């Protein structure tokens, strides 16, 4: 189900809020879980089985780690001691959780990609008789990348002694399936929310702030992301374009993906606040970044944190112990460790976004920029001052734009062709000029101009709603009204991150 749909906004949301507040605390989690499973199964009822499987395995694995699998044992559970050695069953339980989650993710998300890549490779090697030629295609369950990561964070946190396992299955199922952030984040790590699952406070101030988050997130999606998406879709589905039109197309996409995803995150955070939960911030005006290093501290912050905690740091630690202490390639030990860990982490982060070589390349591209900035020292604010701040922002935005071309194009060849159009190489086909007829309409041109103003000159939702004045409240409600009116004219508007 989509937040910006008629059935969610006008039916499921009121039902969820009314039912939630009508129930006592103990019933709230079971009710929220039921609503979340309904929300999740709406696109494909069979997918709830996948989520339920992942939930049950991680629930059992965490209890196994602390030796409390007996459901009749009601004594309070103590967390594991951080830094102490783990027993074999504890290691096995962690392995069970990680392997099963990665297997689910691997099968549902990467099977088609792996099979077709293998076939392409075998054909390229002139051995087509060894091809798999698999007839069936695996359907990707919505949001599987998000909830498997969330669920894994629970067992890893438990293993590290950073979290106490949940005794109640409903509480844990509620954490994994919580509908506001289930299919597109923010990725909430277990230890960030464990306390709130036990007790939370409900205030009218939080509820009102949640309402503003919801209104502003919906506005970002309906009023900015969708129109920009129309221009971007037209540009990226076209043949060879004129250079200027190609640039307009990728700028439109950069606005679309930002407002689509940050809009979704705002709505998720808002819904969480309305239900008494505080989710972590996911965006902090990323296009104001002055380096790619900074960009990754402002864009999809919860994913960056997840990868940093569970992949980059363990990887860097391992590498630092494996690599010799002398200066390989004339670089410092730290630089080599950072380069190896950053490139691998970002490449995997790219692959997390989608099962295609273009996503792998996008991750690698960002990883190499991170390494380049670290080696040149650009990541340090002092070293960056040689250029004025607007120029640094513009440069970073330009680097990000080139990355978005690879991210958005349907294949590497299409990305190369699109970049060819942007650089003026090749000839625009006769129909290419029609794109101008799309973006030059006042609606699309105006939307892109407003998107630019909101991106670079307005506070983000997190800051805007910190102090709610009457004027801010009136603006937000007015935007909600306009968004609902425009929503009636838009038939279908899925979120980009649903497919990841």
């Amino acid at each position, binding site marked *: 189900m989509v937040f910006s749909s008629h*059935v969610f*906004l006008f039916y499921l949301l009121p039902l969820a809020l009314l039912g939630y507040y009508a129930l006592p605390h103990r019933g709230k989690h079971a009710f929220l879980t039921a609503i979340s499973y309904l929300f999740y199964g709406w696109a494909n009822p069979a997918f709830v089985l996948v989520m339920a499987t992942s939930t049950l395995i991680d629930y059992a694995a965490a209890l196994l780690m602390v030796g409390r699998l007996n459901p009749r044992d009601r004594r309070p559970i103590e967390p594991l001691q951080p830094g102490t050695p783990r027993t074999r069953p504890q290691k096995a339980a962690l392995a069970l959780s990680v392997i099963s989650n990665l297997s689910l993710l691997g099968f549902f998300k990467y099977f088609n990609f792996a099979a077709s890549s293998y076939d392409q490779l075998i054909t390229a090697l002139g051995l087509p008789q060894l091809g798999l030629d698999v007839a069936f295609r695996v359907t990707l369950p919505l949001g599987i990348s998000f909830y498997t990561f969330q669920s894994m964070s629970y067992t890893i946190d438990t293993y590290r002694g950073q979290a106490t396992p949940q005794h109640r299955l409903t509480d844990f199922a509620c954490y994994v399936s919580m509908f506001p952030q289930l299919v597109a984040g923010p990725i909430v790590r277990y230890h960030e929310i464990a306390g709130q699952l036990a007790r939370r406070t409900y205030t009218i101030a939080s509820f009102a702030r949640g309402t503003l988050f919801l209104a502003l997130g919906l506005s970002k999606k309906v009023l900015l992301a969708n*129109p920009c998406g129309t221009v971007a879709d037209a540009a990226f589905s*076209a043949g060879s374009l004129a250079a200027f039109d190609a640039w307009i197309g990728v700028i439109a996409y950069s606005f679309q993906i930002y407002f689509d995803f940050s809009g979704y995150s705002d709505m998720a955070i808002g819904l969480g606040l309305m239900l008494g939960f505080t989710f972590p911030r996911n965006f902090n005006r990323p296009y104001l970044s002055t380096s790619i290093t900074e960009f990754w501290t402002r864009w999809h912050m919860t994913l960056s944190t997840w990868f940093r905690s569970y992949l980059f740091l363990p990887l860097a630690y391992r590498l630092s112990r494996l690599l010799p202490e002398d200066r390989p390639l004339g670089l410092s030990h730290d630089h080599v460790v950072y380069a190896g860990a950053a490139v691998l982490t970002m490449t995997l982060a790219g692959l997390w976004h989608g099962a295609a070589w273009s996503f792998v390349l996008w991750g690698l591209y960002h990883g190499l920029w991170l390494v380049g900035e670290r080696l040149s020292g650009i990541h340090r604010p002092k070293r960056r001052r040689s250029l004025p701040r607007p120029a640094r922002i513009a440069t970073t935005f330009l680097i990000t734009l080139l990355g978005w071309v690879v991210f958005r194009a349907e*294949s590497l*060849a299409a990305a190369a062709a699109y970049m060819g159009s942007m650089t003026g190489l090749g000839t625009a086909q006769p129909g290419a000029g*029609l794109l101008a*007829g799309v973006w030059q309409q006042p609606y699309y041109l105006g939307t892109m101009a407003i998107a630019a103003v909101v991106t670079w000159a307005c506070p983000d939702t997190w800051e805007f709603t910190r102090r709610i004045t009457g004027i801010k409240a009136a603006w937000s409600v007015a935007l909600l009204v306009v968004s609902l009116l425009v929503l009636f004219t838009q038939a279908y508007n899925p979120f980009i991150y649903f497919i990841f």
Partner: protein
Amino acid sequence: MARTIVSRPCAFAVTVVAAALILAVPVSQTIWEGREYRAGRRDTAIPQAIDARRFVAGSAAAWTGSGPSFTRRLSALNRRLKTEIQRYEDDLEDRSIVSRFLLPPSQQILSGLLGAGNEKVYCGRDGWLFYRQSIDYAMGPGFLSPRHRARRAEEVAQPNPLKALLHFHTQLRTRGIQLVVMPVPVKPAAHPEKFSRGFHPGGEILHDPSFDEFHRELEQAGIHVMVIDSLLNRMRHSGHETYLRTDTHWRPEVVEEAARTLASYLRNRGVLPESEESGYTHAAAEIINTGDLAAMLQLPAQHGVYPAQAVQIRRVMTPDGVPWQPVRDSQVLVLGDSYANIYSLEALGWGETAGFAAQLSYYLRRPVDCILRNDSGSFATREMLRDEMARGHDRLAGKRVVVYQFSARELAFGDWKLIDLPLVPEAAGDLFCPPPGSLVTVTGTVEAVSDVPRPFSVPYRDHIFAVQLTGLQMPDGNESLGRAAVYLWSMRDNALTRATRIRLGHTITVRLRPWSDVSDTLDAVNRSELDELVLAPCWGELPE
């Protein structure tokens, strides 16, 4: 998250206003549905939002009707639930009274003032409108390019038009029939200057990068490709508009010119024997209508943003002075989509008997047979031809030429399935169908229902869907008639009919007549089918 700073009255006001805005929709809907029920215009007092009967009936039917295997049952249940969820959500939106009330004025501002259009329509210049897929086609990579093929391979099993047309040609050639393929250019290719300032009014029409290759391959295989680019260029250079302003289709003068050019080609090539003067005449008529694209925008009734357009059509009349009709045993068969249906099918609103088939008949001076269906030109008419033949009506008997017309955008976005034409009719099975010319009233239980499009989401205003009935009986319950497949109106002039409320498991009463009684007039209307081919369908009407 830092503490939120807000005054209590402000927080309270925000919460109340937002809650009121959101609750206004379900509350007003429930009140309206209650009033409709009391007025007898709804058949249940249960609000649509909580009416779960369709899920229960659909799930039960899927579970029991999919064999003994547990996994098959589960899979069938899941498929059915997905379908019912989609229908439920569509119904909720389509029947929303608030949406119906607010959408037209919102659209007037967005499209009338700002040029937004919607998912299907782009706003052009000077009051012109364009079908979005046509723009995508005109801008897109060549339809035979590896990039386009890779993209399409994920959407349909057979996206290659060359393969399908060669397959069709081979089957026709075995019966000595010449295939003529006629892709009609899309509107933005003919009038790009009405969409983007970068084009000049007198310029050449836009060409798909793959079209020359397509043309060459077909001609080499012995298929004539009727290209009307030069005709359109000639008319454009002389300052004429060749397409309707707020409609997807070509103007009547272009239809006539295209028919005249094709007739001249067929005569000159000696494909058809010389014919006597047919005596067909032209009768001029003026039609004033608003196009299908303007209708898809769902503007208010008296919007004035995209005014109706007047065109002069020339209707084809027989020597007896009656309007032209297709003749089944003629030597020419036209398979066509809405480009052939316009000025011919009354439901499109642009007049009758002045369409492409009628004009071709006029210029060939001989009768013409036709199978026409709006939309899906890549396969719909070939499928209809196959179904006709499977039912025992050999529409290819005595034919010398098949003219296969479709919109050029189908080359890029069509489903070019390979369709085998049966040589012998299939067994009719045990389906009940009244004898020709008769009308019977029966009751039966709904066993299957075909898909219904959402109003304004498709480029046609009328639609027919299929319902399979079981346990068929005469109303007195005395005679058991078995099963029947029934076609019913699902959409008229972009409004869903009462029949679309039929759900699996419902017992309904319906008046039936054989489909053959009405097929001449209703075959051209878009239709969705049941999963299996129906060899003896009926036409149904629900009693008032």
